[in-house]
């Protein structure tokens, strides 16, 4: 058994592995190859140019800005979204005031909240982005109108039209549209935590904050970790691209304030006819993703609690 272990496993996995190799590994290899060419993307002929694209990348201001924003997304989005989702899920499931017959329950109307939080998840990201574009409209948008209504007119800005606020406006939309999914995910995980743990803790006089950090979070760790990975993918991939592309000036924001790596790849490949350079940026994106994966897997290594 020990001897042919890998061969045995591979035997079972040969079909999926082949598919994986053809549709995932091969395109990667191809992209890396293209990044050493001068391919325009508009004609089938190109020649090798060595490291030219990479040299260009290093002095490309817009690339560094995109990288910076993507990294910011990668760090902040999971942090904010998951914290918020954990808070909401906790309140919905165990955060409520103690009632008769049950030691732990959610706040009043929790089943209603659960549905409401999930709403944005039902809408496609393109629609969400479009809706928020209207909301952020500095003249007729609901956001500035709301600020007017509560007498905070001094806080009114051009939102997407102002480099100071544009990136935050975009991030807000991404948090809004994804937090509901995690609320539901974490809620499901929380309901599988045995109630007696909470009851025991409550009997010992623990308050909500203690129960959250001592019981809920540790038992939810696996779910949080997968949530983190999923969120990281959103922050680096299609979701971030769609929101920036649909919502922001340019696209890419005033003074490049919202440009992100996937958008820059897209613009170079599909607007400027520099597909080779685009794949070079894609390789940079790959490096970032690899680093992210390594960090998450490293940090996430923990003994699993069985219950």
């Amino acid at each position, binding site marked *: 058994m*020990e001897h042919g272990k*890998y061969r045995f496993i591979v035997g079972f996995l040969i079909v999926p592995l082949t598919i994986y190799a053809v*549709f*995932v590994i091969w*395109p*990667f290899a*191809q*992209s890396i190859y*293209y990044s050493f060419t*001068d*391919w*325009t*993307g*508009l*004609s*089938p002929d*190109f020649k090798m140019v060595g490291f030219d694209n990479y040299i*260009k990348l290093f002095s490309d201001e817009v690339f560094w800005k995109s990288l910076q924003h993507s990294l910011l997304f990668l760090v902040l989005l999971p942090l904010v979204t998951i914290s918020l989702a954990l808070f909401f899920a906790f309140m919905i499931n165990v955060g409520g005031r103690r009632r008769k017959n049950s030691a732990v329950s959610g706040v009043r109307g929790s089943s209603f909240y659960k549905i409401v939080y999930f709403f944005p998840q039902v809408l496609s990201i393109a629609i969400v982005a479009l809706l928020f*574009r209207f909301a*952020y*409209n*500095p*003249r007729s948008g609901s956001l*500035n109108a709301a600020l007017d209504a509560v007498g905070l007119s001094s806080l009114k800005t*051009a*939102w*997407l*039209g*102002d*480099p100071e606020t544009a990136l935050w406006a975009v991030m807000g939309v991404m948090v809004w549209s994804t937090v509901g999914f995690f609320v539901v995910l974490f809620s499901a995980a929380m309901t599988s935590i045995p109630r007696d743990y909470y009851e025991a803790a409550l009997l010992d006089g623990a308050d909500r904050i203690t129960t959250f950090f001592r019981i809920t979070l540790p038992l939810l760790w696996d779910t949080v970790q997968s949530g983190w*990975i999923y969120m*990281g*993918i959103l922050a*680096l*991939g*299609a979701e971030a691209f769609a929101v920036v592309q649909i919502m*922001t*000036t*340019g696209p890419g924001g*005033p*003074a*490049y304030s919202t440009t992100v790596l*996937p958008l820059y790849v*897209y*613009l170079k*490949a*599909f*607007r*400027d*006819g*520099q597909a080779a350079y*685009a*794949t070079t940026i*894609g390789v940079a*994106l*790959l490096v970032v*993703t*690899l680093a992210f*994966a390594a960090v998450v*897997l490293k940090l996430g290594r923990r003994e699993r609690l069985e219950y």
Partner: protein
Amino acid sequence: MGSTNVNRRDLIKRSAAVGLVAAPGMGLLSACASGSGEDNKVEKGKKTKDNPLGVNKSAALEIYIFDGGFGTKYAQDAQAVYEKNFPKAKTKLKSTQKIQSVLQPRFNGGTPPDLIDNSGAEQMDMGVLVGKKQLTDLTDLLNAPSIDDPNKKVRDTLRPGVVEMGQFDGNPVWIMYYAYTVYGVWYSQKALDKLDAEYPETWDDMLAVCAKAKKKGMAGWTYAGKHPYYLPFSLYAFMAKIGGPKVLESIDNLEPDAWKQPAVKAALEAYYELYKKGYVLDGTPGLDHIESQTAWNEGKALFIPNGSWVENEAKKTTPKDFEMRVAAPSGLDSGDQMPFGTLWASGGEPFIVPAKAKNPAGGMEQLRIMLGEASSKNFTKQVSSLTSFDGGTDGLTLPPGLKSAVDALDKAGKNIVNPRIQDWYVALQKEKIGVACLGEMMAGRMTPAETMKKAQKYTDEAREDDSITHYKHN
């Protein structure tokens, strides 16, 4: 957990790690793959008097139209004419808003359609297409007799500047611009009348009109703040008027002092004054083209830099008594090099016949039909825009905006400028100079001096970038 064992959890973890790495990058990277280009053209037909381009009468024809402000009806009508002339030919007309996403793979695969309206936000870079020899030279079309008059070449029926715009270096003509766009300052005659004002011919007058409007609670200007590359539609002709057409040629040629010219400085400072004095509609930097046009239609602002497609695009929001007008940009003062009326007018809706098209003669024939008087009139009637066919407005009741555009062209006469930076260097014009320079300046976040410096920096970078094909005015 023994170290030599691969247990289920490890396996899942490892494959999850690989999958995680792959997921975000995959869609982006694997979109690119190039195929081989093989040549499989249809046989040419016989050249006759009725068929000067030698179209194969039974060959299929595939047309791709950008489905934007002009819609696709005009192209379908022209397609019907083609089908009538060549009843045996199977023609297909497809349309999309995403020209590049749809057609780029077909260029790579060597199987592009026969005629493309390469327009819209996803326009394929013309410089690259030309540089990579992906287009058919349209000289045959230009030298063919026109549909209406066998004694007149197509070339001689076109508006000024159209043929030159299709050339990149040397004689071949790669692009046939079908629409003819008049750029300028758009306004409502009714709004001006209400203010008891005339369209201002100098900048002092412009500021005076804006001041008047401000008193009535109306902003002087608005523009597509999210697409600030609409600003050049009036700004560039303004620069040319101040300093002569050389100013724009220098910008197009990416010269080392292009953005340091006195005329450029004067024009930018004049526009900046609009911001400084509070004549720009509040919140404009956050409005897109539709939103700014709507605000303008609602009478929130007096002037908007735009092109002649605006009348059709803003049709739904334009009040009946709006009396839409376009005028050449106001000048600076009496020291200007060019007279009032100097106007940016140029071809729009670039049609191309790919080099690897199966039926290039058919594509050109379709263009020949479209450039005839009947099709041209049909286009003008449907979408209220001029075509490159010189004429085609007789007997039509033109909508007010288009009528004023025709008048503006008449008034401009020879003083028509045509900045090429817009089609030569798309990224530079739109994203760098448009969004990152002019947009920032008009939002008040950069001074004219900083704007000039930055625009010059971008210009220098573009000049020194070998991956961009460079062009020069002759």
